[in-house]
């Protein structure tokens, strides 16, 4: 994982890349996810059917703030009510520490590599 919770100051602070195969949509998040970039991620969120899986690859993410956690919580609530699965990919670093702080692993599958 590249960043360690430091904001980098560049024009494109955040980007999302989507790929899809066999009912699994993978969103790869890069840069900084905060309130000002959350909209870009929300716009990229797919329509999911029951049995689908949404994978958020957070490994290239340098920074995530509480608005990222809020989104994870919202996705978890949605996934449980609609029957799809949410998986987060994250390794040691600032983002993983925030996930731990919020005990996300008690509720959402967090893995170190793409499933």
């Amino acid at each position, binding site marked *: 994982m590249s960043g360690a919770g*430091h*904001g980098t100051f560049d024009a494109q602070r955040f980007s999302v890349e989507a790929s899809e195969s066999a009912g699994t949509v993978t969103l790869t998040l890069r840069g900084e996810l905060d309130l000002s970039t959350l909209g870009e991620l929300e716009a990229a969120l797919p329509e999911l059917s029951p049995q689908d899986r949404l994978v958020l690859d957070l490994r290239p993410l340098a920074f995530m703030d*509480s608005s990222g956690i809020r989104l994870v919580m919202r996705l978890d*609530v949605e996934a449980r009510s609609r029957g799809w699965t949410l998986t987060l990919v994250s390794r040691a670093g600032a983002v993983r520490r925030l996930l731990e702080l*919020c*005990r996300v692993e008690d*509720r959402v599958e967090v893995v170190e590599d793409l499933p």
Partner: protein
Amino acid sequence: MRADAGLIPDNEAQRLAAVRRYAVLDTPPDGAFDRVTALAARHFDVPIALVTIVDTDRIWFKSAVGLDASEIDRDPGLCASAILQDGPWIVEDAAIDPRTLANPLVAGEMGLRFYAAAPLTTHDGFNLGTLCVIDRQPREVTAEDAGVLSDLAAIVIDELELRLSTRTLVEREQTLRSYAESTARVLQASLLPAELPAIPGASLAAFYRPASDSEVGGDFYDVYALGPGRWAIALGDVSGKGAAAAAVTALARHALRTASMAATDPAEAMAVLNQAMFLGHSESVLDHYCTAHLSFLEAGHDGFTLRSASAGHPAGLVASREPAAPAPLAATGPPVGWHADAAFAATERRLASGDALLLYTDGLSEARRGGELLGEPPIAAALVAGRGQGADAICGRLLELLTDPAVEVRDDAACLVLELA
């Protein structure tokens, strides 16, 4: 000079109130009106054109082309006569017109011979003054010319109406803003303790800085006695802002207070708060959620015992004389309001003489300096640097971080510090 009684309209008191309403008297020159007088002078090919406002005792010129004066007395001003009419008032040759031949402006040095005016009539029917054109030689005015004069007068009144409505809007906005600000202040104050209790052998300090003056924020802190030698210390951050967030903030603060009184452990109280967030909902709606920290502090023979539960909140820090680096308190549960069956645990540690506990919200750690997040290091450094001089000294250093002009604060920030003597 008092105006001749014959020159006073029947509705004069209301008319003067209308003049005051537009707040135009004695305002500086203004291009919008100067363009209209210039246009009028050009159309009528006269040396003088005026936009006038008829005040109690004077005729004041909002715009004057070809006349080096800013006002004249109401009597003998011809505009005083012109505003008595509903339409244009035209004197083609003042020297022979019985209405004006004795007027000092006509008979005297001014030598006025031609005067044509259209009243500036407000939407509610008051004539504030005139748009008038003046010459020192007699002239003829066609019906079409009179129509042009009325049209130009209508432009002047439209401009005045526009300014009035803009000013009214701005004033209303200011009133609303100041109301919102005072409401936010009162509401915010109700979410924070009026004063912190005295804890023998320790000093306490706290601050709260809202990101906005007009909107109540979602951070709170609280310190209260649980019994002899026992206190609770709480700090939290409700997502969102405004009245809806404030309602959740009030719920969080008071649920924690009430639950703390009955609980033997802060984790129990945190679980009660989590349940409270779901009252009325079977599932999470996540309209608001809250991260929070709750510690129970118990005085012992040698220092204090600190039991802490956290709900997804930035880790509290404890600084001691040794080692130099502050130790974070462990995370023990998820944010409250996420899922109803969340489990919370508590951790326990001793606080000895000289130890300082810092709780803060992410408005502090997520402030940015030159685009870079502050993060925990400068917060820990402020804690270490201020430790040993009382809780106020630590709070002061943390506040300096936020008030640094190079630091951009995007969210509410709250801090609570306890230091053992």
